[in-house]
Every structure is written in structure tokens, then in C-alpha cells.
């Protein structure tokens, strides 16, 4: 076993509370007194990976219990777990958003409330609650996406329209084209980027493929031809 791997395992055992007192003392002393930046980074890396595995559920029941009765008693570590959970949620939501158009079996953004109700009926017969959870999660994502389009007096839709006609624009250009103040444009762009509708490259904005598809759907629904 390489020295590095052995060191990593030792640190992992430290975090899991598996080290005898003398070894724990020794490694703690090295943490403070060994000025090798690699060693400190290794501590931080193993800590991060353990908490990732904990938050994503990639850890054995035994190790989970060890973390909960040890390392995770620290509020500091709770914040780190919250970070991973936020990342996990963000990924789940983004995945859902992109699946809206990619998967025909998933409720599309412009499906009518009536058909959603029909879905509810058939799903309710099914005992698998995961289907409902998925629908709810998609509904939540759709809501966030719609909000990014309609908040601020439909500024999101206006931006998408502008970006499809001019292809690329800076924030200042958008502000002047739409006659809106810079702050409103900045906020709207953040929401659109967050929802994957707009892409930014070095201060220049363009409509993403998802943004174009959503815009087409909107145009189709309202019978508008550009």
C-alpha cells in the first residue's frame, strides 16, 4: 500500500472515530504542527469526501452511525452536509428541467391542467409513490421555470425574444433594447441562467437550446409567429 493511501486511510479512520487515543493524539498534533500543505489538504479532502458520501447515501450503515455520533455532532460539519444536500437538490432539479423536454413520458411544460389531473388519477391507482414525488418535483421545477419567465412583468420572456432575434447581447444592450433598468435585467438574467434558459459567455448572453424550445412552445400556445 502506498504511503499516501495509508495516510488517507488513517485520516478516514480519524474522522470515523476508529483510532485509539494515542494515534488520535498523534494525528491531531500533526494536523496543527506539520506544515506540509498537502497533509492539511488531505484532511480537508477526506472530510469532504466522507460528508459527500454521507449526504448522497453512499456510505455503510455502520459508518453513517459513526459519523452521526462523532464528526457530525459539530455544527460546522452540519453546514458542510447542508452544502452537499443543496448541491444534490440543485442537480435533481436541473436534471428534471432538462428531462421535461427530453423524455416524452414526463409531463411537458405546456400540458394542460386537465391532462395533469388525468395523470393524477392513473398514478393514484398505482401504489408507487415515487411517481407522485417525481410529478411534484417536476411541478416545482416548472413553477420555478415559469417564474423566471414571468417575474418582473414578463421580463424573462422579453429577454428570450430579444436574444432569439439578436443572437447574442450584453446586459447593457439588453437593458437598452428592452428599456428596462440594469438591475431588473441582471436579476432576470440570473433567474434565466439558473433555469438553463440563457447561457453566459464572458458577459455576453445567448438563448440556450432549452430557452429556444420553451420559447417555441410559448409561441405555439399563444399562436404567435415571429
Amino acid at each position: 500500500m502506498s504511503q499516501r493511501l495509508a495516510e488517507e486511510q488513517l485520516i478516514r479512520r480519524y474522522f470515523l472515530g476508529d483510532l485509539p487515543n494515542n494515534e488520535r493524539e498523534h494525528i491531531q498534533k500533526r494536523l496543527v504542527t506539520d506544515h506540509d500543505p498537502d497533509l492539511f489538504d488531505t484532511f480537508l479532502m477526506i472530510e469532504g469526501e466522507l460528508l459527500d458520501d454521507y449526504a448522497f447515501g453512499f456510505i455503510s450503515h455502520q459508518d453513517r452511525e459513526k459519523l452521526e455520533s462523532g464528526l457530525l455532532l459539530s455544527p460546522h460539519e452540519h453546514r458542510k452536509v447542508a452544502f452537499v444536500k443543496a448541491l444534490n437538490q440543485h442537480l435533481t432539479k436541473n436534471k428534471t428541467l432538462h428531462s421535461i423536454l427530453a423524455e416524452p413520458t414526463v409531463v411537458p411544460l405546456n400540458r394542460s391542467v386537465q391532462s395533469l389531473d388525468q395523470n393524477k388519477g392513473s398514478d393514484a391507482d398505482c401504489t408507487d409513490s415515487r411517481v407522485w414525488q417525481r410529478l411534484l418535483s417536476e411541478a416545482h421545477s416548472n413553477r420555478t421555470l415559469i417564474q423566471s419567465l414571468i417575474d418582473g412583468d414578463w421580463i424573462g420572456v422579453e429577454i428570450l425574444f430579444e436574444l432569439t432575434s439578436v443572437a447574442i447581447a450584453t446586459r447593457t444592450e439588453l437593458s437598452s433594447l428592452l428599456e428596462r433598468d440594469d438591475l431588473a435585467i441582471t436579476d432576470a438574467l440570473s433567474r434565466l441562467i439558473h433555469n438553463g434558459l440563457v447561457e453566459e459567455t464572458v458577459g455576453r448572453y445567448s438563448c440556450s437550446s432549452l430557452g429556444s424550445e420553451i420559447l417555441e412552445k410559448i409561441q405555439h400556445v399563444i399562436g404567435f409567429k415571429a
Partner: protein
Amino acid sequence: MNRDPTYSAEDFQNLLRWLDADQQRAGEKYEDIRQRLVKLFAWQHVSDPEQLVDEVIDRVTSRLCEIEKTYKGEPGVYFYAVARNVLREHEKQTQVVPLEDNSLVSYKQDSENSRRAEDCLSQCLLKLPPEKRELVLAYYSDSKESKIEVRNKLAAQLGVTQETLRVRIFRLRLSLEKCIEACIKIAE
């Protein structure tokens, strides 16, 4: 919680001089020791590690005249010895609250915090250059079954070893965590 130091600016300058004759290196050493002590305490379940580190620095700074006369070793070792004493005293005074109790009391607060963390994460991800943002999202987006496979593929795509990928993710994660922490502080 922030506390006022008991030492003067001059005492602090003396402490820096003790750490290194070069002012810049002394500042770096001070930050390095401080960061390591914060982690040492955090990993020992201390709820406010910064406060305990302040206590350690207070003690070392206030005894510096004496230390310089009698102690000839590495300053880090001295700091560690003081940190152990401070930790022991702290453990005697404090009883650790079990995780379940914390969770029950602060369920609502937790959900608010998690929403805030999520909002901040979105903002911080947007601040990353697109290629770094994609890398961090791709790294974490794999399922349990395909974890190793996806990371192998990512490393191959980037033309780097698994270890390099791991270090890159570690750095990205650290910068994201810092950004989120700052964002949450502003939101509070």
C-alpha cells in the same frame, strides 16, 4: 461569536515576529496555524471553533515574553499544547447535544437554512467559469451505481488522472463552500 482580544496591537506584532522575522511569512504562518486550529476544534465537536481559537491566541500572545525566554521549539507545537488545554477545559464545561435533539428543535430553521443554502449555491455556481461549473455538476451528478464509471469517464475526457480530478474537485468545492458561507452571512 466574536470576542475582543485581550492583547494589544503591539503584543500581536510581537507574536507575528515570533512566528517569523519576515512580516509577510509571519502573517501566512499565523493564518495557517489559525486555520488548522479551527479545524482541530471543529472536528472535536466544538460549536464555535473560532472563539476557542481566539482563546488560544489570547493565551499565547499574553504569555509571549515568558515563552520566548523559556521555549525554543516550533511555535506550532506550542500552539497545539495550549489548544489541547483549552479544548479540555471546554469539554469539561460543555455537554454535547445529540444530533436528534438538534434536528427536532430546529426542523423549521433547518428547512429555511437548506433553502437559503440552495439559493446561495445557485448564485455561487453562476460565479464559476462555465467549464468549472459543468465539471462540478458532472462530478456530483452520477448515480450510486455509476459513480466510479462516471468519474473515470470525466478524468478521461479532461485527459487527467483520477487523482488530479479529485484534487480539482476538492479545490472547486472549497471555493464554492467559501462563496456559499459568505452569501449565507449576507442573507442573515
